[in-house]
């Protein structure tokens, strides 16, 4: 899911960076209102936690193991605005220190995984959860929010790849950035995420949310907000 340097043209990464900056500015204001003066250490902690959550490998039914991107579970636990800042800080640190994801692609990666994915996951969770407190329903909502948000984010990423041959190729038509057009990039990313990575993300999201639900349900933002609205 992390786009490396060299795959996106400046025509793509500069506007996406602009969109991310605008979204992050709104998120800083929103979170400041929610957690007041505590927002800085709180978000620092949330960012570290969203980075750390990607490190945990879990055995998945079927004999394999995997780790989550984490945006869905972070959005359910911390809320979409805090998740946006937390995941984007994690992505920035990953790009700068670990070389995971490109520096020029920071805006695009943050847009896909820190803006689009947490919001999609959060609202899908709320849509499927539909004001019920049943554990099985919450597990299912968590699974579906992790699954769908990752699949949709993967399709968005593939679209960014796929438009490169259309908007940034040489005079003789040769690709200068990602060489795969939409009809290759979108099916490839969509199929592998629908059949494998999405399921892993869904299962891990459900397992973690379940544990939080069993141990300390009040720490789950999505459920807290729901009971506030009732």
């Amino acid at each position: 899911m992390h786009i490396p340097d060299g795959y996106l043209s400046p025509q793509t990464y500069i506007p996406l960076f602009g969109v991310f900056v605008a979204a992050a500015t709104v998120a800083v204001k929103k979170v400041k209102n929610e957690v007041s003066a505590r927002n800085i250490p709180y978000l620092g902690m949330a960012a570290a936690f969203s980075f750390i959550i990607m490190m945990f490998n879990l055995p998945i039914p079927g004999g394999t193991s995997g780790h989550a991107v984490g945006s869905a579970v972070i959005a359910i636990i911390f809320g979409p605005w805090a998740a946006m800042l937390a995941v984007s800080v994690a992505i920035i640190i990953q790009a700068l220190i670990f070389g995971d994801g490109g520096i020029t692609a920071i805006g695009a990666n943050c847009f896909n995984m820190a803006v689009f994915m947490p919001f999609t996951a959060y609202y899908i969770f709320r849509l499927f959860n539909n004001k019920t407190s049943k554990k099985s329903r919450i597990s299912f909502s968590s699974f579906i929010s992790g699954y769908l948000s990752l699949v949709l984010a993967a399709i968005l990423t593939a679209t960014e790849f796929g438009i490169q041959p259309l908007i940034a190729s040489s005079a003789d038509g040769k690709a200068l950035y990602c060489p795969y057009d939409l009809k290759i990039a979108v099916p490839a990313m969509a199929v592998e995420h629908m059949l494998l990575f999405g399921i892993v993300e869904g299962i891990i999201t459900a397992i973690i949310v379940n544990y939080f639900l069993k141990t300390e349900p009040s720490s789950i933002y999505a459920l807290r907000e729901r009971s506030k609205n009732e």
Partner: protein
Amino acid sequence: MENKIPAYLVKPVADQKDLSETKGPRLAFLDKTILNSARAAKAIYVQAENSTVQSVIQKINPHIKLISLIYFLFIISIANRIEAQAVITAFIFSLYVLAKLKVFEVYKRTFLLAFIFGFVIVLPASLNLVTPGRIILNIMTFNKPSHFLIYTIPQNIGFTDDGFKVVLLIFLRILNSVSFGMLIVFTTSFPLFVKSFKILGVPDTFLMIITLAYKYIFILSRTIEETYFAFKSRLLGNIKNEKIREVISGRIFFIFKKSMRFYENTYNAMVSRAYQGKIILHSQKKLSYHDFVALFIIVVSGICIIYFL
């Protein structure tokens, strides 16, 4: 001599299998987690260690380094000729030598990333299915071209000369971007580098969050490593995956609670130092003659690469 060991200690228990004969638990996922956390802690440690080496590059002001990073990454992303990318590769390598970094160590990781993203993933693009051109290595021949949904399959499938050029260009672009990024980050103290984002208008609040997260990540990575080693050392015999998932979810929850405690402690420490909700980061040392020379070299190199190559 009479054996005085009680009989119940000598006699094997009927339903107890010899532990050496039982299959060990599948620990790959545990090792992966330990490896991930150790890698994170090591990367932060190596970065901090390299940033303290005394050399010409390390002395450059972080503001200049940030401007150079943005400018040069832009140059790398718009240099569309293989020759230009090759010159950039040589230029960056010379900067590594100047920086007195462990060139082999850094390039090992850089080449791995460039190999995966710039070669393995992109190689199929050199087939005539993606990049048309003169076939220089034929792989498959059919009786006639065919169509499948929105795809056209030509009579001959093979690697094209233009396709190889595309792969080489993308490989070099990724190699150069990653190696230049690492050069700048590895030669600068991370908190100082983050502070330099101020010149781009990034709010102090956001910079403080990055700095705090960076420190928390280091501490939490160490915690995960230790708890996983302890967990692994207690495992004996087969454990159901369901049970393992339960235990790991517990570890994640433990890390969450520990993070919450860190956050509360940090907040209390900040309040005790008169924090009232506003963050003001102090500006860094002033620019020197040395910094302007460095900036000039980078700017002129970029212009030359774009105009002359």
